[in-house]
Every structure is written in structure tokens, then in C-alpha cells.
């Protein structure tokens, strides 16, 4: 390659001073941010009473528990555990599906390209945010008090908390959609529903489907945890066995959850690919 003509540095510097002189504030921003983060971290360690000695003493206990876990053994409770695992999977599946069904129409109200006036969008967004701000576990505790112990409370807990999360994700996917395709429908004389149904949904549905599949997968884990507080499923069994120190059963249950999550991960990966590669999402 031929070399470029040597530019006149002084003249260019005089012409575009901003490009050459980065202000001091901009240059110092990164080091200042790193120093601040470090300070917060050290303060946190101190304030939370982090003591290495306590941790090292506990390590012995941890090692003992690990030894007790081997080999994993369900005893005679395998059928019970399988049923509990099935329950957990249904909680995750039902909860997420219901959450997505509710979130889709609401997410349209939160998307700038569907509802331009801020007066509507702002409250909808804050509403989704506040629901999302409360963790699934808290929602489980709430619903257990409303509908009693059991999987129904678990389904409601996942439905409500993920309604907030999915609503926000969906509205972002909708805002990222290509405007030109929607405009093509409008220019042909389509109404607002046509614009959404034919201009927007074909673009957005594959993204949404991927998000829902991911949530089903991650909710399999959440469903095990909310089981611990009494919302049904395998978590309930897990909590009980930890309480009575049946470590072999505990490790078996943990393995069951791992295998289930891995299986769902595998299936949802395949499904996601199939949806995105599909000929037409009509």
C-alpha cells in the first residue's frame, strides 16, 4: 500500500482542538471509577465482618458434609422425588407461559414505537419495574399466604415476577424492531392492528420465543428454590432432607435438579434454533 501523505499536525490541531485535547475530566474518569469501586469493595469486606479465620474453620465442616454426600442415594423415595421433580417442571412451565401470555399485550403499551405518549408508557413501565423489583421468593411467600402451601402458589409466584421481567424484555424487543417493515404495512392502508400483527410480530416473535424458552430453563432452578419455602415441588424435599441431615439424599436431589436443568437447556437450545431458522413465522 502506498503511504498516505504526511498530515500537517499543527494545522489540524488548530482546526479541530477537541479531537486532540481530551479534557482532563474525561482522561481521569476511568482511574477514578476504578479507585471508587475498590474503595467500596474494601469497605464492604470490613463492614460485613468478613473474617478469613471463620471461613477456614468452616472449611473442615464443608469437607465433612461433602464426604457424607457420597455416594448419592435416594433410599426408597425415588418415586416420590420423581413426582416432585415433575411438579417443579410443571410449575416452571406453567408459570412462565402464563407470565408471557400476560406480558405480551402489556409490553405493547410500554413500547415507544407503539404508544408514543409518555403519559401511558411511563406508568406501565414503572408498574412492570416495581413488580420485577420483588424477587420470586418473596412473591412465593406472599402467595402461600393467599392460596396456601403447594404448587399453585409456586405457579402464581413465577407468573407475577416474570410478568414484570418479560414485559420489559418484550417491550425492548418491540422497540428494536425494524420500522420500515411496519411503515410498509401502514403505507398500504393497514390499521394499527395490522401493523402489529403483520409488521411487528413476525420480527419480534422469534426473539420473544427465545426469551421465554430461556426463562423456562432458569425458572426450573427458581421453582426448586421456592419449593423450599413451601411452594411445592422438589425444593420441598430438598429442604426436608437438609433439615434431617440425610446428605446422601440431598446430593441425589441436587443431581436430579442438575440433570433436569441440563435437559431443559438442551431442548430449549434446539427449539430456539428451530424457531429462528423457521421458514416463515406467520
Amino acid at each position, binding site marked *: 500500500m502506498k503511504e498516505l501523505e504526511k498530515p500537517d499536525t499543527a494545522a489540524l490541531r488548530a482546526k479541530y482542538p477537541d479531537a486532540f485535547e481530551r479534557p482532563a475530566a474525561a482522561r481521569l474518569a476511568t482511574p477514578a471509577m476504578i479507585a471508587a469501586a475498590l474503595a467500596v469493595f474494601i469497605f464492604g469486606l470490613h463492614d460485613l465482618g468478613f473474617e478469613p479465620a471463620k471461613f477456614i474453620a468452616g472449611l473442615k465442616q464443608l469437607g465433612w458434609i461433602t464426604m457424607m454426600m457420597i455416594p448419592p442415594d435416594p433410599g426408597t423415595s425415588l418415586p416420590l422425588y420423581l413426582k416432585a421433580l415433575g411438579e417443579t417442571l410443571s410449575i416452571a412451565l406453567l408459570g412462565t407461559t402464563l407470565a408471557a401470555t400476560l406480558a405480551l399485550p402489556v409490553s405493547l403499551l410500554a413500547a415507544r414505537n407503539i404508544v408514543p405518549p409518555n403519559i401511558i408508557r411511563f406508568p406501565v413501565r414503572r408498574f412492570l419495574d416495581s413488580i420485577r423489583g420483588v424477587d420470586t421468593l418473596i412473591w412465593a411467600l406472599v402467595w402461600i399466604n393467599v392460596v396456601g402451601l403447594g404448587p399453585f402458589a409456586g405457579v402464581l409466584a413465577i407468573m407475577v415476577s416474570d410478568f414484570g421481567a418479560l414485559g420489559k424484555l418484550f417491550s425492548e424487543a418491540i422497540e428494536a424492531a425494524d420500522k*420500515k417493515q411496519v*411503515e410498509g404495512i401502514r403505507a*398500504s*392502508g393497514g390499521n394499527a392492528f395490522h401493523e402489529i400483527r403483520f409488521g411487528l410480530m413476525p420480527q419480534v416473535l422469534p426473539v420473544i420465543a427465545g426469551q421465554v424458552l430461556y426463562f423456562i430453563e432458569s425458572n426450573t432452578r427458581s421453582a426448586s428454590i421456592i419449593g423450599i419455602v413451601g411452594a411445592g415441588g422438589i425444593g420441598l424435599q430438598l429442604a426436608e432432607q437438609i433439615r434431617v441431615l440425610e446428605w446422601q439424599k440431598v446430593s441425589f436431589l441436587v443431581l436430579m435438579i442438575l440433570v433436569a436443568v441440563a435437559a431443559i437447556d438442551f431442548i430449549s437450545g434446539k427449539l430456539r434454533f428451530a424457531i429462528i431458522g423457521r421458514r416463515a413465522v406467520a
Partner: protein
Amino acid sequence: MLVVEGLTCRFGAKAAVDGASFEIAPGGFVGVIGRSGAGKSTLLRTINRLATPTEGRILFDGVDVTALRGKELRQWRARAAMIFQQFNLVGRLDVLTNVLMGRLAAMPAWRSLTQAWLEEDKALAMSALEQFDMASLAAQRTDQLSGGQQQRVAIARALVQQPDLILADEPIASLDPRNTKIVMDALLRINKHFGITVICNLHSLDLARSYCDRLIGMAAGRVVFDGAPSALTEHVARELYDLEASEVMGGVPLPVPEAVPALGTAAAA
């Protein structure tokens, strides 16, 4: 008869279209020319009402199009079919469904939203595709087609709207010479065969001169030329494009410059 009276469209303080007035008789093939940013796209978009005019009126057969709302507005949009530079087709829908979008304004909502297309609408769509040699690709996903094929699908969509007017915004700007000819010929055929008025934004003066029977020249939002292509003198072209006129018109293939322009001069040209 399309009548545009003192049409102005402002974005903030900037007037993209500034007091444009002209009349277009049915059956014309009108080219809109002018340099980038002159307001050509905005003019077409206000006629279709994708953009809302700030001042002025657009009348079609005596009806004030600028006052239309709701269903009547959507029916006007269907009558003033738009063709875009970027095609604006729905990529993940198949070709036939995209063409059927042109029928949306003419059917009840339940029918379109459940995709219970009428047999005769499908026939209309297929015959439109057939006219542009696209019928065999009806089941293909649209984003898998080439640019020229997509633009033909877009023209088929416009055609099934059974429009009075076709507004084409630089329909060939992203196409190669062969597809340019195919698409321009398709527009010409619609114009001559069905008598549909075509208003077409073009960047190439040569194309404008060979296809259009009238040219409207715009500069900074104003209409500065309106007449037959033969009346477009070098002087006017120079004013329109702010260029040496020989660079715009003149020899059909642009002469290859003898020396590669030095860095920095390319942007000014």
C-alpha cells in the same frame, strides 16, 4: 387529478417541503428530481400521509386528502400506493403474504387478522406476481430474495392495492443496472397498461429523461422546475444539483477520470 396546494412540511424549524404547488393529471409518469435532502422523499410521504403536512392541502379528485382520518385515511393510503428504496417488505413473511398486505384496507379486520384470505384476493396477488415473473417464488421467505426480486414483490403489493397513484421513492437506488431496468420497466408497464399515475423520485437524470413524461425539480424543499424533460436545460440542471451540468447529463457513461482525485476532493465533488 392530484392537486398539491402550497404544501409545507416542517421538522422543527426546518422546512423539508416548502410551499410546493402542482397538479398532476391522471395517467402521467412524473419524475421528481433534486439533490439529496431536497425534500423528494418527504413530498411523497406527505402525499401518502406517512408524514403530516404542516401547511397546505392535497386534493385528489376534489377530496381534501389532508383532512382524512381513520378508515378513510387508510383507504387513501391504499389508493396512493408507496414503493420504497428499501422495499419495506416484512422479511419473515412469505412473498404471497407480503403481496396480500396490499389488500388489508379492502377487507374486514377479522378476515385479515385470522389470515382467512379470500380466494379472489389470492388470485389477484398471484396474477400480480406473475406479471413480474415472481409467481414461482410465492412461498419463499421474502428476506431470502435479491433486492431486485424484493422490489418486484413491493410493486406487486402496490398493484393489488388497485391504486389511483403509485408513489415510488427512489425504487432503484439499491439495485444493479439490470434490475434497475426490470423495475423501471415494471413501473412503466403499470403506468401505460393500467393508466395508473406514477410519481417517481429518481437520482439519475438519464433515467428520469427516458421514462418520465414530466419532471418536477426540487431544491431546498421548493419546486424550482416543472416541465417536460426536454425543457430541462443544462442551466436548470446545474442549479438543481449545484454541479457542472455536464457531470449530470451529457455523455451517457460517465467518463473515467484520468487521474484518481486527490484525497479530500472526492467529498466536494
